[in-house]
């Protein structure tokens, strides 16, 4: 775990993202490393989730990708929410990595060469 004392508050983080959203590309690269906190991914049948204190540096970096790609559609507050959601998913991904898989464990999706309708 990164040192949580290095993490900005949620409000400060959102404010910096807002400033970054208004600035040219890569302005957000200066976002500091933060401590991860628990959250959960959105679901079609949602359940209450705890609010994270501050996203991780990886989440911030990915949020910067969102800002560069789609920043014209997003407010600073929304970028802050995206950072939290991304952070939650990254945390989930870490949980998934803890399940042991071997090289032979394939994704449970099968490709068919046949066209729909059997053509």
């Amino acid at each position, binding site marked *: 775990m990164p040192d949580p004392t290095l993490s900005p508050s949620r409000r400060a983080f959102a404010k910096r993202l807002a400033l970054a959203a208004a600035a040219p590309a890569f302005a957000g690269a200066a976002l500091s490393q933060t401590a991860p906190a628990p959250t*959960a*991914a959105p679901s*079609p049948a*949602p359940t*209450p989730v705890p*609010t994270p204190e501050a996203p991780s540096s990886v989440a911030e970096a990915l949020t910067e990708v969102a800002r560069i790609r789609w920043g014209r559609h997003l407010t600073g507050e929304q970028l802050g929410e*995206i950072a939290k959601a991304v952070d939650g998913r990254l945390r989930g991904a870490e949980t*998934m990595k803890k399940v042991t898989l071997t090289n032979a464990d394939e994704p449970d999706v099968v490709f068919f060469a046949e066209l729909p309708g059997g053509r």
Partner: protein
Amino acid sequence: MAPLAEDVFFLSVAELSRKLRSKEISPVELADGFLDRLERIGPKLGAVVTVTRERALAEAKAAERELAAGKWRGPLHGVPYGVKDLLATAGIPTTWGAEPYRNQVFAEDATVVARLREAGAVLIGKLAMVELAGGMGYNNADASFTGPGRTPWNKDFWSGGSSSGPGAATAAGLVAFSIGSETSGSIVTPAAFSGVSGFRPTYGRVSRHGAMALCWTLDKLGPMCRTAEDCGLVMAAIAGKDPLDATSLPRPFRPAPANAKRRRFKVGVIKGTSEKAQPEVRKNLEESLKVLGTFCDVVPDVEFPDFPYGPAVGTIVAAEGASAFRDLIESGRVKELRVPNDRWGGYAASLVLAVDYIQALRLRAPMKKALDALYAKFDALVSPTRATVSYPIGPDFDKVYLGFGGGPAVIPAGNLAGQPALSLPNGFGEKGLPTAFQLTGRAFSDETLVALGTAYQARTEWHEKRPPL
């Protein structure tokens, strides 16, 4: 023609079918009565998007002619129903519950709608739903351009999502049955919150052709009805191979005959699913287990396999949903969505790493294996469908019912493994809101779950309760 008594609108499909076949009621007067209720009560519950009066009356007249001529298509012949507004219907708007798609019209019926038409059922309405079936991460009941779906038991509370309209409309007697969809919880949750019987089939048993895609590897269509038996009747009409959906399977649904003799069922109770549930949910589950115990061997404290079901389903829904709606997200038109969360959720979802998505798909194989090994020992496992009654309309979901929930993630697990589930009403909790339990089974045990649910409902009356409209 005298109006039909209100009782008629709360009959099961099986009972309506008997009355239609014996000509005690006519398909046209039945459709007309349901249409009137859907138009009058539907908007008050946020349950309806489009009333398909013209098509309904045409189908009802056709059914009337055929029944008069002695041609009976089966138990759905002449029975009015509605579909979640993510199923394509020829020439009628299909809005996916979302403002950007309000004027979308398809040229053909979805396979499920076509099959119901062939079965003689009468389509009376396109029912409300959470925008884009919740794929953008909604966190509030007010999540459709038609407004929040309201449970008819207490209109200050949500009917559940994302099949909000099918839940509310079926519970209020505005349709005799409905079709919902589930990616992870979207049939069983509104069934529980609305007090109806909701069936999520095994993945692949019902064609998804013509249904809005949110998540190709998880989406399923299924019936929401008054009874488990009705779910079986609808499944018999819609299940089976469809050349237009490569994931559909040649496994028609064949309900067990009502008089079939069989051994006692064996059900297990999933350990830890009700410990953090609301007290009424827990108490009602205990009562349900007593009833199940009269015709089942009940095994308590069954350990559920421990896997990261929540993260896996969240990752898959995010990645596939972001791809399915990439044009909407990248064009910025998601800003037209109702819920503030849905206006940015797609961008967050677009950032899921490919390796994480593939990891989630790889995990599905060991999850499926472990779950099947467990479920093979039982006809079904039992748990509360939801740990709480419905959520109030207004506050975000994460602001209420703090401290309730937890336990094994039965809904995500079942969806990841493609397993069927049947949610059945089993009483009432806070604020007069319904509670429910779910029966989950191994893949392709759909008929067994329906038989079990039918046997339960033969011994209880919760499915016969009517909301105070």
